Structure formats: C-alpha cells, structure tokens
C-alpha cells in the first residue's frame, strides 16, 4: 500500500513538474488588435455605451420615485402609472448595463492589459469588493421595488416609496464609488511639494486616490446629468407611446407624461452648465495646461459643437413649451410685466460686463444679477408701471430672439482654428471684440438661456393655472421635439464624455501612466462625431426596443379617465 501511495505521489509530482514546464514553454498570447476601429476606439465605444445605460438606470429611478411620491401625495394614479412604466423599462435595461459593463471589462483587459492591471491593483478594494457588493445590493432592491409595486399599495405605499429612496441612495453611492477611479484617471491625487507624484501614488491610501480634485465635481455633474437624462428618456417613452396610442385616453395620458418628463429633464438641465463649469474649473485648477488644451487647442472645436448642441436643446425645450401653450384655452389673457422683457433683452450685455469687472468668485457681480432678476418683479407692482405688460406670446417670442442671441454668443470662438498654433488674423476675432470669446461673455450667455427658460416655465405655469388645458390635443410635432431632446441629450453626453476622457491627453492616468500605443493622439471632431452618432443610435435602438417590448403602444389598458377640457387647477 505504501508503495502504491509513493508511486501515486511520484506520478502526481512528475505530472505537476511536466505541466509546469509545459506551461512555462507556452508563449505569450498575441497582442489584441481590434479590427477596423483599433483598440482605443473599441474601448471608447463600449465604455460610452455602458455609461449611457448606467446613466439611465441611475437617473430613471430618481425620476420614478419622485413621480410615485407625487402620485401618493396628490392621490393621482397617473403619477403612479408613470413611475411604474419607467421602472419597467429600467428593469429591462438593467441587464444591458451589466452586459455592456462586462464587455467593457473584457475589452479593456484584452486591449490594455498592463494599464488595466495597474488600475485594478490601485483600486482593488473598490473593484473587487465595494463595487460588486453595491451592484448586487442595487439589483436586489431594484427587483424588490419593481415586483412589490402592486402588493405594496394603500397603507404600504409609504414603505414602497422608502424602498425606492433606498434604491436611489444605493445607486448614488455606486455612482460616487465608481467615479473615484474614473476621476483619478483625470486628476490623480496631488503630491505635496518636494514629493514626486510617482512616489506619492505608491504609498497613497485608497481615500487619497478617491478624493481627488475632480471626484466631487464629476459626481455632481453626473448626478444632475442622470436626472436630466431620466427626464428626457421619460419624454421619449411618452412620445413613442403617444404616437402609437389608439384612444384619446391613451393620448391624453402620454401627452401629460411627455409634459412631466420634459419639465423634469429641463429643470435638471438648467443646473448642468454650472456643474460642467465647476468640473472644468477643478480640472484647470489641478493643472492649468488642461484649460488651453480644452478651450484653445485640440478640444476647442469640441466645445464649439457642445455650444451648438446646448443651444439646440434649449431652443427645443422652449419650443415644446410654446407648442404646449398654444393648445391652452385662455392663454391670450396671460400677460407679464414688460420689465421682464426689458431685463431679458439687456441681460447678455449687462452680465457680460459685470462678470468682466467682477469675475467669479467675486461676489459683486451678484448685485447686477439680482437687480436684473428682481427689479422687474418690483417695478411690475408699482402703481402706474404695472400696466406696462406684454402678452405671453410676445414674451416668448422675445425669449426666442434672445435664445438665438445667447446661442450666438456662446458659439462665437476666439478663432475658427482647430488649434491655437494655426491662428492667423484672417481666422481670429478682431482685437476689440475678443471679449466675445472669453468666459464672462459665455457665462452671460449661459445665464440668459437659463433665465429665459425659467421665465417661460413661470408663464406656462400661470397659463395652465388660469386657462383650460386639453391633454392629448397637443400639436403632433411636439412628439418629435421630445424625441429630438432625448436624442440630442444623449449625443451631447457622448460628446462631453469624449471631451472628459481626452483631457487626459496621451496618458491613461494624467501625468502618471503614459499611453505608449500609436493611437494615443486626440481624434478629430469629425471622427468622434461618427462614433458618438453610432453609439447614440445603438443605445436608442435598444431603448426603443425595450419600450416597445415592455409597454406595447396601443396595447395597454386605459387607467385614467377620458381627456376632456378641464381647468388644470381642478385636477
């Protein structure tokens, strides 16, 4: 028996040695070279797609739980149905998020094995423990939240809403956690003077690496962006369903849903320029050379395109208000102080000068801002002056004029050149007009857009309170506006995500881990636009499919009473 044991051990030992020798002789696997796109573009496309799905599954539950709470508070079943439909689509897209996340990981590991391993080692606890646990927890809560919808009604509704809030807390924490490594790649922790960054990173704690310069600005930017995204996708769902509706009841409901989606989307959109500004400021504070790279060099035309996209989104969202307003009976009686119109007309010029004299964070510019915002309200109450009013339609038309002016200011570059090095007098602003291309002018334009949209919503709110609105009877073109908003918001997200990644220049981790591959240069805007459009279309196709499969236009049962001319106040 002993001999048998010994023989078995000897044979086993020989097998192990043989296997080890054989393994040692296995040559390295060939390097991965993604066909057609190249490795860098492949990672970019998959990452972009994953982030879009992730943004939706994080943004939609925020939207849904707010709607569910409003429904519970106002005892309005429409809100509850809206929330449930959005969550239905979210559940389907949740699996797509996991799938694209896995794909992203495989592609990244295959194409950039050294860098991927380096990053995973630096954030091992995040990637191997915290993030998976949070993802599992979120999955459990999401499915519980969805499948308990019908059973947790009445007295249990409050608990169901609490579950939704918990889902959003876990989702937000997940976002913040994964933003750690992402923002670290842009702005790795800064070493104290006299200490090399390379040495510091080797000994830095996980928290040092997580809480880097751009972490919190990125968290806030993405959080607000996700809510905007959730709102616009709810608008998209409403548009599809409105187009496919067979009855007036359905059209009435989906018209209302489009209105709510757009309102939440636009409401969050108003904060986005400031969040983006905060992120850009932090990037520039981290390393001032990032600023010219973004604004004057290779990325300058990307920002020109961003200006065009933001301008189009603001135009479209206000056009939706216009179309909604046109179907309200009694809107012709709604008037607004003419001083508001005057304030809007002078706002870009006054604020441009104010921010030039007192650039942020100097507070004096706020005096001018407060004067422009509040003076019309006060003057509008002064006897003798309060009769100076304009109609709702005139006010909105003045608003549209100023939106075009603000867009024009936002989009005026210092020079029509792809990089500052190529600038000549024939392509640059004349010396006296260079202020048009500087931040005070851009800030004034952004604030005008935001202010105008708020004014339009205030007026719209007055109109629906005093007039009579017929849900379901909106101009059919409005549905294309909702679709346009969702498409453009997704495209802009892709563009700005590309910009954020490109600010790392030829580094995987800025100033720390160089990208030695031949693809490390900045792609052109035209090339990027093709891929961003491609990713947007793929995402759109999947979301459209999910909507059609889960909600089936024309097939759902009517829940709300038939649409009829009812003053909104009465609802």
């Amino acid at each position, binding site marked *: 028996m002993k001999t048998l044991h010994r023989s078995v051990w000897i044979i086993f030992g020989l097998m192990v040695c043989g296997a080890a020798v054989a393994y040692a002789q296995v040559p390295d696997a060939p390097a991965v070279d993604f066909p057609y796109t190249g490795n860098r573009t492949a990672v970019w496309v998959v990452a972009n797609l994953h982030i879009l799905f992730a943004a939706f599954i994080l943004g939609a539950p925020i939207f849904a739980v707010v709607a569910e709470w409003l429904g519970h508070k106002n005892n309005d079943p429409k809100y509850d149905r809206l929330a449930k439909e959005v969550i239905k689509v979210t559940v389907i897209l949740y699996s797509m998020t996991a799938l694209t996340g896995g794909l992203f990981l495989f592609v990244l590991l295959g194409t950039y094995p*050294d860098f991927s391993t380096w990053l995973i080692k630096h954030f091992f606890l995040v990637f191997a423990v915290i993030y998976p646990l949070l993802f599992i927890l979120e999955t459990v809560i999401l499915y519980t939240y969805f499948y308990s919808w019908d059973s947790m009604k009445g007295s249990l509704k409050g608990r169901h809403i609490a579950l939704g809030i918990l889902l959003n807390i876990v989702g937000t924490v997940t976002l913040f956690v994964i933003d750690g490594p992402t923002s670290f790649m842009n702005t790795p922790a800064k070493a104290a*003077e006299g200490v090399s*960054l*390379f040495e510091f990173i080797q000994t830095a704690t996980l928290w040092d690496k997580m809480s880097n310069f751009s972490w919190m600005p990125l968290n806030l930017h993405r959080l607000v962006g996700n809510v905007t995204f959730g709102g616009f996708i709810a608008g998209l769902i409403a548009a599809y369903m409105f*187009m*496919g509706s067979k009855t007036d009841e359905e059209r009435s409901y989906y018209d209302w849903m489009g209105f709510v989606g757009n309102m939440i989307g636009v409401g969050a959109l108003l904060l986005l320029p400031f969040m983006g500004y905060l992120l850009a400021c932090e990037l520039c*504070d981290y*390393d*001032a*050379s990032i*600023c*010219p*790279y973004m604004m*004057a*060099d*290779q990325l300058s*035309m990307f920002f*020109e*395109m961003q200006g*065009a*996209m933001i301008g189009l989104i603001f135009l479209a969202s206000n*056009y939706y208000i*216009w179309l909604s307003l046109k179907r309200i009976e009694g809107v012709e009686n709604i008037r607004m102080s003419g001083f508001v119109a005057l304030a809007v007309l002078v706002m870009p010029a006054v604020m441009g000068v104010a921010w030039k004299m007192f650039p942020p964070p100097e507070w004096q510019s706020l005096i001018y801002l407060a004067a422009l915002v509040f003076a019309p309200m006060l003057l509008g109450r002064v006897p003798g002056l309060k009769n100076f009013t304009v109609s709702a339609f005139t006010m909105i*038309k003045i608003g*549209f004029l100023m*939106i*075009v002016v603000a867009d*024009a200011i936002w989009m005026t570059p210092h020079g*029509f050149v*792809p990089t*500052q090095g*190529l600038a000549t*007098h*024939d392509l*640059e*602003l*004349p010396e006296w007009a260079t202020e048009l291309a500087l931040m005070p002018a851009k800030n004034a334009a952004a604030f005008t857009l935001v202010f105008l949209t708020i004014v339009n919503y205030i007026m719209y709110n007055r109109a629906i309170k005093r007039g009579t609105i017929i849900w379901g009877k909106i*101009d*059919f*073109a409005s549905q*294309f506006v909702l679709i*346009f908003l969702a498409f*453009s918001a997704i*495209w802009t997200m892709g563009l700005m995500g590309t910009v954020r990644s490109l600010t790392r220049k*030829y580094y995987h981790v800025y*100033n720390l881990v*160089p990208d*030695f591959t*031949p693809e*490390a*240069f*900045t792609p*052109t*805007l*035209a090339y990027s*636009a*093709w891929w961003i*459009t491609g990713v947007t*279309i793929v995402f*759109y196709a999947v979301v459209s499919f999910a909507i059609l499969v889960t909600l089936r236009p024309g097939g759902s049962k009517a829940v709300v009473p038939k649409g009829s001319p009812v003053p909104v106040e009465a609802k």
Partner: protein
Amino acid sequence: MANQSFMKSVLKKTTIGIIIGVILVVAAQQTHFPQVFQVMFFIYAMLGAFVFILLDAPAMKRLEGIKAVVALLVFYVLLSGLYIAGASILPQFDPGVEAGKIEKVLKMRKAKSQQGKAEELIARTKELDERAKAISKLLRSLGAGAQVEAVATSTSGGAAASGDIVALGKEQWELQECYNCHKLFGSGGKKRGPVMDNIGNLMTPEQLREKLLYPKKWKAEGFDKQYKKGKMPDKYRDLMFDEEIDALVAFLASLKDTSVTTPKPIKMY
C-alpha cells in the same frame, strides 16, 4: 388657406432674416471681422428666421402606423446626418502632427520603461546582427584597412544625437506646449503667463531651472492673480528628464531680446 398664410409667413420671415443677415455682414465688415465670422453672423440671422418660421407653423397632422415609423426613421437619419455634418464642417486638426509630438515626448519614457527596454533590446540585437553580417561580408571581400574603415563608418553618425542643446530646448518648448501660456517671438500665449523674449537677461540658468521645477518660488511682476491661482503647473519635475530640463533651460537662457518688454521675475522664497 392656412397653408397659404403659412407660406406668406415663411416668405416674410426669410426676407427679414436675409435683411438682418446682410446688415450684420456689412456691420461686421466695417468693424474688421474676418470673413468666416461674417458668414457665421449671417447663419445666426437665418437660424433666427427659421426659429420664427417654426413658431408660426401650422399644427402637424397625426401620423399613424407605418407612416409614423417611416417618419421616425427619416427623422433619426436627418438628425444623425445633421450632427455629423455640423461636426465635420468645423475646422479639424491633423492628428498626425500631435502623434509626431507625442512620439517625441514619450520616446525617452518608453525607452526607460520595461516595455521600452525589451523593445530596445530587440531592436539593438537586430541592429548588431545586421552589422555583424555586414562586417563579415566585408572581411571576406576586402583587406584589413577596409575592415577598419567599415567598423569606423558603422560606429560614426552621432552628430545628430549630440545635437545643439538650444535647438533641443526649443523643441522642448514646443513639446511641453509652453507657447499656450507664454508669448515668444510674437506668437502664442493668452496672457496666462509672461512674455519670455528677454528672460535670459533677467534670470540665470539656475534660477530658470528653479522656476521650472518649483514654480511658486518665483513670480512675474504683474502676474499676482495667476501666481495666487498657481497657474504655472508644478508637474515638470515629475514629467521631464534632466536632459530635457537642461535643454529647455539652455534655450530660455539664450532668449535675450531687450526690445521686448519682459516682466521682471520676483523671488518669493
């Protein structure tokens, strides 16, 4: 009837848009805006006209079934085309230029990395192999004098490598993109940093090196705000090799054009 009135509105607003556009173009010409900006102003005027046409457009008829699907697909194709075209019309840079720059910047880093070392070894082995073959071929066919000449030829050619340190420093100026913040020879810089044309007369090479590695130790006169905000990056001590820093310092020290006013450097600590 509604269509006729809409067509009238289209004509009226297009005409107004063109008139405003022409006024803007003439005003831009008179105030010395380049042609590209004049075109841009005209486009904005036409965008305004288009927006006001849309505001008064009659309500769209409801689309159902296949018509709605086709309309949606056409809409998506139009949007995609519009965004791609918009991005493609804007000026595009040549990625080849940047790729060349990156190649130069990363060359030394790559050589010092493990991957670079392996690649360098392979390249070196290949080179030595080629040389050995060439030498043996020469030995077989030529005499001893020719053999020495061949070896001498193969080991020469280092002139380019030794290079002119000031020229190498100028290359570093370009590669590190110093021109983005500092004006030199009348170009570059957007008031983020001081003009550098006469810096060689105002700072010694040691002081220049100190400023480059520890930017907070020196401030340029009149650049208090930029100094306070730490505009000059402190990354170069981590990113540049000694040879590169020496070259850049040599280049900066050679800048002695007294005709250009260069802000006075102030020692801070």
